[in-house]
């Protein structure tokens, strides 16, 4: 454990996060599409890539943001307005709820961040009604939120907590493999959904990994 000043996460940090996630979605477009081809309709890669490309473009087009909320709202609205499918409303709501929870400030502290992500998770649940074990993005996002909160509560710093969250998201993603899908397109397959990794949980793991690598400035 390292002792540092309480980290603040500012608009620039969120901006890095969005761009890093957009790059990850682009890099892993084919993986996401292949996972979706197995138990869905082969578009999750295209959806996330299109949405995050549009989000970055919208962020670029705006003349800067004076609050974290404004940036997150811009991303959320762009996702709602450009993705469609299940992931559009779900990711869109995730970001819009984070925005709503972000107040008006230009920077947040670590606890705020955990609160934001948890609010976002709540939005995903409100919109999609997913429950644990349904084999959805929830199954990666919920453990990530829990790990982030627990890690901070136990006194770890934000970098450590985000690293823990990323590991939890990865584990949650991997845990979707043996699940029987109860929500989304994969549920149409019944037993045949077992043995496949959920595409939405996979993109969520990318999202959390991107947070871990961008929200905290590198030491030094």
């Amino acid at each position, binding site marked *: 454990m390292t002792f540092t000043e309480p980290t603040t996460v500012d608009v620039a940090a969120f901006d890095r996060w969005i761009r890093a996630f957009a790059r990850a979605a682009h890099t892993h477009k084919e993986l996401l599409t292949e996972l979706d081809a197995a138990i869905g309709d082969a578009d999750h890669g295209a959806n996330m890539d299109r949405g995050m490309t549009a989000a970055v473009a919208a962020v670029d087009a705006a003349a800067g943001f004076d609050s974290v909320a404004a940036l997150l709202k811009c991303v959320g609205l762009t996702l709602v307005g450009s993705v469609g499918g299940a*992931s*559009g409303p779900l990711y869109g709501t995730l970001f819009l709820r984070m925005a709503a929870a972000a107040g008006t400030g230009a920077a947040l502290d670590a606890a705020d961040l955990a609160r934001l992500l948890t609010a976002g998770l709540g939005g995903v649940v409100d919109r999609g009604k997913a429950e644990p074990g349904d084999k959805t993005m929830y199954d990666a996002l919920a453990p990530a939120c829990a790990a982030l909160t627990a890690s901070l509560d136990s006194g770890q710093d934000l970098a450590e907590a985000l690293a823990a969250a990323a590991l939890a998201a990865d584990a949650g993603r991997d845990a979707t493999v043996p699940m029987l899908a109860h929500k989304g397109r994969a549920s149409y397959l019944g037993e045949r959904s077992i043995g496949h990794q959920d595409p939405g949980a996979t993109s969520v793991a990318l999202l959390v990994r991107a947070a871990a690598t961008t929200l905290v400035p590198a030491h030094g």
Partner: protein
Amino acid sequence: MKKLINTPESVVSDALLGIAAAHPDLSVDHINKIIYRAEPTPAGKVALISGGGSGHEPLHGGFVGLGMLDAACAGEVFTSPVPGQMLEATKVADAGAGVLHIVKNYTGDVMNFEMAAEMAAAETGVEVVAVVTDDDVAVQDSLWTAGRRGVGVTVLLEKVVGAAAEERRPLADLAELARTVNRQGRSMGVALTSCTVPAAGKPTFDLPEDQIELGVGIHGEPGRRRVPLAAAREIAAMLVEPVLADLDFTGGDPVIAFVNGLGGTPLIELYVLYNEVARILAASGVQVARSLVGPYITSLDMAGASVTLLKADDEILRLWDAPVRTPGLRWGV
């Protein structure tokens, strides 16, 4: 991947340009990817709006016109449109009597239409009611899943409720009629090949030469099980039996029988299948009053077919027979 397209990215907007060029009766908003009637919705008529991922043509854009839809939103291939499109379509088509959203039951479609309705409520005074179709018996229905998919019955519903809307019936009535049609319709599909999503560039699933995928939807989702390739007669039985097992169509009610092509299967095969379907229905005591055979709700270039049965009554048959003038269905006018 071999397709008559320019780029995977432009396929939807290029097709919309083609629809606009081919059908002067229709207007196309290329920004919002909305197809709507060139003539404004007459005052007092409830507007019918549908939409969904592209790749199911003629559904939905090809069903815009007199006697069916007032507007349709085109999403990316197999991806529900976004709420903004549906909101725009709602605004464009509303003529003061409210708007019926016809939504196929897919998580994405339902959520995006829900958000559109929320936006419409917040931003406009337009009254919106949504009805969801979920007729696919291949999917086990349960409170704990996404429920059944909306497939073939959507076509029949758009026709029947569209005809009722032309009669200036109020929104609540139309919604009730739509729910009735959905409740009385059931479908089941089979794929002989996968489809190829343009952006993916290769078939969604691999199907050996001697196997077929039973219980597929219209998005290249794998079905419920693979069975050996069989004669049309046996395939017809595999499609019709689960439909009849799910709902009793033998009570003497007139039935609309719809054999649908999934995009890559030519008409000659659909007629072969229809013959076997009709034979089974006759033997089962189902009274077919009307039929529809052709590719009306497709899954890109997938070879395969689906069977939809709709338990009708004299009123539904009358609405089925009513004039319709759309690119996809046209009669009586």
